[in-house]
């Protein structure tokens, strides 16, 4: 059962990373235009080089 002392912190850490990523996405306004983002992935405009 000693393994729990590693596994529980690891699982919490992984969950925490997800939560932090969610906060970051929220803060950088990535939920403002879900329809647009879903469609933007289909455009080929910046396939060759990144948008300046």
């Amino acid at each position, binding site marked *: *059962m000693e393994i*729990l002392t590693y596994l*529980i912190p690891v*699982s*919490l850490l992984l*969950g*925490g990373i*997800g*939560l932090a990523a*969610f*906060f970051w996405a*929220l803060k950088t*306004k990535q*939920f*403002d*235009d*879900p*329809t*647009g983002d879903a*469609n*933007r992935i*289909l*455009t080929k*405009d910046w396939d060759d080089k990144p948008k300046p």
Partner: protein
Amino acid sequence: MTATLEPKAFEDVEYASVSACPACAAAPSAARIAQLSMPDHARLMLSLPAAHCAACISTVEQALAATPGVQSSRVNLTLKRVSVDADAAVTADQLISVLAGVGYEAHELDAGLLSATETDRQGRELLMRLGVAFFSMMNVMLLSVAVWSGAEGITRDLFHWISGAIAIPTVLFSGQPFFKSAWAGVKVGRLGMDFPISLALVLASGISIFETWNSGVHAYFDAAVMLCFFLLLGRYLDHRTRAVARSAAEELAALEVPRTVVLVDGAEVTRAISEIAVGDLVLVRPGGRMPVDGVVVDGTSEVDRSLLTGESLPVFAGPDMVVSAGEVNLTGPLTLRVTAAGKDSSLHRMADLVAVAESAKTKYTTLAERAASWYSPIVHLLSFGAFGFWMWKTGGDLRYAVNISAATLIITCPCALGLAVPAVVTSASGRLFRKGLLIKHGTALERLAQVDTVVFDKTGTLTMGAPEVTNLADHPRAAVEVAAALASASSHPLAIALADASRKAGIQPAQVDALREVPGYGVEGLWRGQAVRLGRASWCDADEAAMTATYLCAGEGSARAFTFTDRLRPGAEAAIAELIAQGKTIRLISGDTEGAVAALANRLGITDWASGALPAEKAALVRDLTLQGRHVLMVGDGLNDTAALAAAHVSISPASALDAARAASDIVLLGQDMAAIGDATRISGQTKRRILQNFGLSALYNVIAVPLALTGFATPLAAALAMSLSSITVSLNSLRLK
């Protein structure tokens, strides 16, 4: 949100361009100060109603990027807007013509009105609480599974402690909206749905800490966070529906950028309507809407009063005539002396009337409120009853009794009930939005489901306010040729309709020279050396016909009358047929003349109609019907309908309506097509049925789970199962809407 711009920067640019000229020659230093304070770029915002796909994004963004002066642009497809960062010199009109060039209709949006930051902040806050609750729920669930599958002794205690360390901060953070609203309710002496929720959260956390401390078997940490998550989900859906409606309503308001042309010492200056004072001279161009009440000092024209009175026939306007805000100028430029502006104008006074009518409207109790009003007492009684019974039964075992009463509260907690209404409303209003209906008011769908009588306005609602020639074939070809030639010289709606109709009939306009438009009267010219006129009856020495008509006099004795009817709004026939099929009573009430109303009523098969109605009569009709116990849906667009819209049980107005009418109505028809109204009443009926079904479903879960809780057999596992199963069933049931 990207669409939120710095309104201040926008205003600066506005001022800079307004103060740009007459002053800068006189005071160069002022111009320099303006230049220094002027930001080197501005954010413009345009509405793009037609954007819908990936290709639209690229086309629009590339077209804008190729425009000189534009630094960057971004399309928001969810809101159908594009925000543009550009040099201060770039104006919205330039961008609109660029977009028109690539095939997209665009409208300027008043950036100041779109400061939706408050709603946005609330939404983001809710989403963050939801995210935290989700994280905790998943982690605590992971630990709980171990406990449920038989962890014992020190391992179970350890898991309980860790769960508690995650759950308690989560409940404190994510539960805040419930605690706040429960506290606000308690302060005014009202127990809403939030009170049992808060009580369950507090009690579940408290009892779990106590049990963990004493190495107990049952801890409800997972139930507490799961409760938080599902209830926040309902809260978030509810918020989002309202935010979408609000932002679209703001967009409608922002479409009318309130500027007007004022004459200052003979020079034309563009000003915001709020800055206009009584006594100013205002210039209204043909096609423009009167921004203020005033008296005509110069110019002759015809004005369209249909939005104010419902008359479909334009009225002559000349010097000394009184015009009111909201009327549309048709043919010639008019100069007005302002008699009342802003808050004192007749438009605003009407809006005040609406506010009074709205506040007098009896408050509608929603299904959710009604459910909460019998639900809360039952839950509390059950819980306290269980506490009392087990205290007596066990001879004063406080810990056991509190455990049972907490389990009862948790199991009966309205998880599914909290989702029951928002999930259905979200799904229904999304569906209606795609059909072109914007639900402005949260309870509008529920109220729409009760409607049994529909009252329609005519001009601008059932008809487009755009005329159509009816008797082109009755006239000889030569006369039509001359009329077409004269009509093509004018932008009067009747003239445009006449020119269109003759073009469609394949008739070439005759050669008419010296064409001249006489604003307010008509068009005249020379045809084969003879003076010909097309215009008002009095100008042609003709007898006025009973219906809308324009007259041609080409020296053949009596004048020829071209008669018009108002064009029907697309989908009007379908909507009325559908409403009749649903068994609703249809009435038509209009401010227009008897002939015009009778013709339309016949065409649509409406037997119950009234003409020449004053605004007060419309409102009185709606009130009478309400007193007879009917639930009235009012559909109207004009200022004369506003009082009736506000008095009705539920109301719909088209997007072309005056903003006062749109503000008074619960639902706005975004597109031209009216057939969506039939769908709306059908979907609202379904919505109500689904909501009731959802209540039934969650009640069913309670009927099974409550006896378990009361008898002390409810484990945290049973609570978790009941909660998640009922929430999922309710959500799935909501998605069944068609």
